């Protein structure tokens, strides 16, 4: 996955993501594609969650999945998550759950609960930082005011790091793939360098959801695992998503 929160010169916040999923779950040699990624594409839907006949939040989902991976609470915050691989991974959390230790939260359910219940960027950040999880993850959160955007690096039990936007330091965007931001990505899977090069080339002045779509359309940020691209703008709660293909030649991840 690749998630980005960016702030333009006028303080508008944009959040975009590529959802990449299905690695090592069967390769279709004939069509040069991952089997599960392809089969998930028809299941991608946008959801409008309503309460009292009013939109509470919106998301991009897979039909049949009741948790959330990508969402916006109109005028308050935007949220995505990226997978974090770790030896102390989800399997340990699942085993603990089976054996009755149930103080951790399932990732997709936490995302939905945050979008449902948090009423500010800060409140959402606190929940994402403090709630015990069953598996490690990266949460990418955007707010509605200048400087409100961060990557939360989570282990199962606690928050390891929070990297925030910092305009004074020239950090007008935060970008996460699937590696801790203080470490180099695996050389075989370096989507970060390409994505950051394109963000820097775009510049803060020209950043918009449209130019973020350009960044997310550049190989290898776009790759054979990419199922969908979502563009969000907190102001007005705009969310649009597109099912993607990566024509050959294209990296498998």
């Amino acid at each position, binding site marked *: 996955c690749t998630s980005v929160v960016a702030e333009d010169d006028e303080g508008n916040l944009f959040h975009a993501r590529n959802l990449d999923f299905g690695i090592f*779950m*069967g390769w279709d040699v004939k069509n040069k594609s991952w089997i*599960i990624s392809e*089969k998930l*594409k*028809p*299941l*991608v*839907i*946008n*959801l*409008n*969650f*309503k*309460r*009292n006949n009013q939109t*509470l939040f919106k998301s*991009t989902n897979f*039909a*049949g*999945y*009741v*948790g959330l991976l990508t969402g916006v609470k109109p005028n308050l915050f935007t949220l995505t998550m990226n*997978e974090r691989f*770790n030896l102390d*991974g*989800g399997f340990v*959390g*699942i085993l603990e759950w089976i054996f009755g230790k149930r103080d951790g*939260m*399932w*990732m*997709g*359910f936490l995302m939905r609960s945050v979008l*449902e219940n948090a009423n500010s960027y800060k409140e959402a950040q606190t929940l994402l930082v403090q709630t015990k999880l*069953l*598996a490690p*993850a990266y949460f990418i959160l955007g707010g509605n005011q200048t400087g409100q955007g961060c990557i939360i690096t989570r282990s199962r039990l606690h928050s390891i790091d929070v990297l925030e936007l910092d305009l004074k330091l020239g950090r007008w965007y935060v970008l996460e793939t699937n590696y801790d931001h203080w470490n180099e990505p695996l050389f075989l899977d370096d989507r970060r360098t*390409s994505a950051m090069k394109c963000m820097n080339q*775009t510049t803060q002045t020209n950043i918009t959801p*449209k*130019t973020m*779509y*350009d*960044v997310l*359309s*550049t*190989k*290898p940020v776009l790759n054979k695992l990419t199922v*969908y691209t979502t563009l969000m703008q907190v102001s007005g709660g705009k969310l*649009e*998503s*597109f*099912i*993607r*293909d*990566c*024509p050959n*030649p294209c*990296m498998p991840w």
Partner: protein
Amino acid sequence: QFIPPYTEECRTEMYPPAGPTFRSAVSWYTVDLDSPPSDRWTALITDKKNDLLVVIKAIRDFANALVPSGRLVELVDISLPLMVETLPKPYGEEIKAIAAVAGLPLGEVVLYNIFYEVFTV
């Protein structure tokens, strides 16, 4: 670049989406949180039932390829339905309703919903 990792110059003018990197737009559905958890996904699942069956079958085939005896799928079908009662509200109830509407084994729909935790292995 025609050798891996097939990097390219930064794309421009890709929006509005079109061409070979764009397959389709995504349709919208409404989930009414005021309706009972057992009802709120019915219309959507009725619409997407066939696509969901295809994905669940692909996951089942993958599990059977990993453990050809079929024991893994058997374990999912027997043990994961027990787990649904332990999931926080309203998620367990929603998952049960989805399995019923789609006509899928409950354990396999539970697996689909906890895939992130399973997959981070």
